[in-house]
Structures are given as structure tokens and as C-alpha cells.
């Protein structure tokens, strides 16, 4: 396949009219604002935390993105809207790795432009206890190591997720990001 054909095939994955293309290019220009790499943003020992309300809508946005339609995660259903839901733990619960997905928004200063091009490469996640949909959790991250391997730069963090109301520990994780 020629490179021209390959490019054409790739573009067909997301067909766009001229106005959609212009809007896309504008959105990407905004993302490309000058930013520091994660490597430069983080010092070992940096500790950050944020709170996240795990609303029913947030849970189904996550689940729909990976086409996971397990009813245990449903505290929102079309036509009924917000419902209690059902799971082996009573009401609806959040998918096992959902909170892991939000750690990235905590471990780097989210008020600064996002560094496009960094890659999540590894996670070691401990699921301690189920989280009920509707809970508010506090995600705390701590940079524990910066290292280079085969010419690439990595930032390693530890993270912990607890319930804001009762302090219950839900989740712990060690994760690596490959920085630009």
C-alpha cells in the first residue's frame, strides 16, 4: 500500500466536511499551547490531591466508552434517569478501574496546559473495596521516582483513593508515564 493510500485510509476513519475539519484544527491549535513536559513539571516527592464526585452520568460515560454494559454500573438509565441500581453490594457500583482513569488528572498540575504526546505505560492497581456510585472520593498522588530506560524518560507515581466522608480506603496504584 502506498503512503498516499495509507493516509487516505487513516482519514476515512473519521470523515469530515470542511467546517468540521476547520473546527477540529482550531481545537487542536488550542491544545498545542506551549507546555512543559511531565518530566519537567514533576519533582520526586510532589504530592497532589483532588476530590471527584462519582455521579451516575460520569460512570456511564466511562462505561459506554469501552462498551461495558454490565448493569451493576447503572445508576442512570434512559427514560428512568437516576436510579438506585443493583449490584452484589446493594446499589450500583463503579467499574473496578474507573478511579484509575482519573489519576492522570491529579498527578500533574491540571491548571497548566496538558503535554500532548506523553504515554501511560504501566499500572499496578490494588482494588481494596467496592465504590458505590454517588460517592465522593479523594485521589492523592505522590511522585516517587523519575528514571530513564533505553533513552526514554519515565515518571512514576503512587496514588491512593479514599472516601471523603468516612476515610475508607478504596484503591491504591503505582503507575508510570512515559514523558516527552
Amino acid at each position, binding site marked *: 500500500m502506498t503512503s498516499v493510500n*495509507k*493516509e487516505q485510509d*487513516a*482519514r476515512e*476513519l*473519521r470523515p469530515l466536511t470542511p467546517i468540521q475539519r476547520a473546527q*477540529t484544527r482550531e*481545537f*487542536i491549535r488550542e*491544545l498545542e499551547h506551549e507546555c512543559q513536559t511531565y518530566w519537567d513539571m514533576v519533582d520526586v516527592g510532589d504530592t497532589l490531591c483532588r476530590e471527584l464526585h462519582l455521579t451516575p452520568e*460520569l460512570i456511564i*460515560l*466511562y462505561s*459506554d*466508552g*469501552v*462498551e*461495558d*454494559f*454490565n*448493569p*451493576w454500573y447503572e445508576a442512570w438509565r434512559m427514560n428512568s434517569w437516576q436510579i438506585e441500581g443493583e*449490584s*452484589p*453490594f446493594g446499589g450500583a*457500583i463503579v*467499574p*473496578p*478501574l474507573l478511579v*484509575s*482513569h482519573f489519576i492522570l488528572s491529579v498527578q500533574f498540575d491540571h491548571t497548566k496546559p*496538558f503535554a*500532548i*504526546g506523553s*504515554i*501511560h*505505560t*504501566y*499500572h*499496578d*492497581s*490494588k*482494588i*481494596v*473495596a*467496592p465504590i458505590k456510585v454517588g460517592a465522593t472520593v479523594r485521589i492523592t498522588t505522590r511522585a516517587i521516582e523519575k528514571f530513564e530506560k533505553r533513552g526514554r524518560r519515565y515518571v512514576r507515581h503512587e496514588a491512593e483513593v479514599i472516601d471523603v466522608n468516612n476515610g475508607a480506603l478504596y484503591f491504591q496504584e503505582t503507575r508510570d508515564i512515559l514523558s516527552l
Partner: protein
Amino acid sequence: MAPDQTLRINASTPIGTELEPIKKRALIQLMGSRLWGRFNPNHWDPEYALSTGLSAPIQTGEMNSAYITEMCVNHFGEHLFQNARIVCKYIASTLADEIITTHGIVTEKETVGEGCRIKVDVWCDNELGEKKTVGWVEVTLPN
């Protein structure tokens, strides 16, 4: 649909048992949804991906972890939500439109105070059998 109870792994499941795979296409519209990859155009914009040397947008590795987790919930049910461990390493990029299949095989069993700790090697690959994500999962099951 509630998880199929017939898939459940229990303390007497033998080592070598394979988990029932699940299959997903890496759909660019899902890869670029707001909650997933919208913050990085390499996850959803072909033109941008080409400009950075990729042949197509790449899926976030965490989507593969979510697929693996879905497979594990099918087999371990509520036990995956307490005192479980999931380790994943993203060894190759998943390109838009690839079909990803999850795999798992029971590799270890150990008696622990409250039951049996089971270890499962897990991975994802594409239609060509190229591995994208590898790792393992540990769950404690009651005797």
C-alpha cells in the same frame, strides 16, 4: 444483562483454565470521546496522528485495561471488587479500527486464610495475534 454465572471461576478451578475472551473494535469515535482520549488528538484525529509519525490514531492503554477487567468481572464477579490486584503493561499501541481480543489463563493458586488466592495471566492482542497489553490479575475466592 447480568454476568453469566456459568463462567464463574471458583477455588476448585484448575490451573490452566482459560477465561472466555471478549472482543472489541478500537472505534475512533469512542477513543476520542470526552471522558477518554479527547484531551490528546493522537487518540482521535488521523491528520494529527499522521503528523506525529503514527499510521493512525492510537487508543489509550487504559481502554485495554478496561476490556481485561470486563473479562475478569465475567469470571470473578463481586470478588474482583475487593482485595484484588490488576497489573498491566502497555507494550504496543492499539491503532484505530483494530479488533482487540482479551485473554486470560489461570496460572497459580494459593491457599490463604479466607480462601484461595488465584492468579491469572492476562493479555490483549489484535487480529494478527500481536500483543498490545500484558499483565496479571490476582483475586481471592472463598473456599
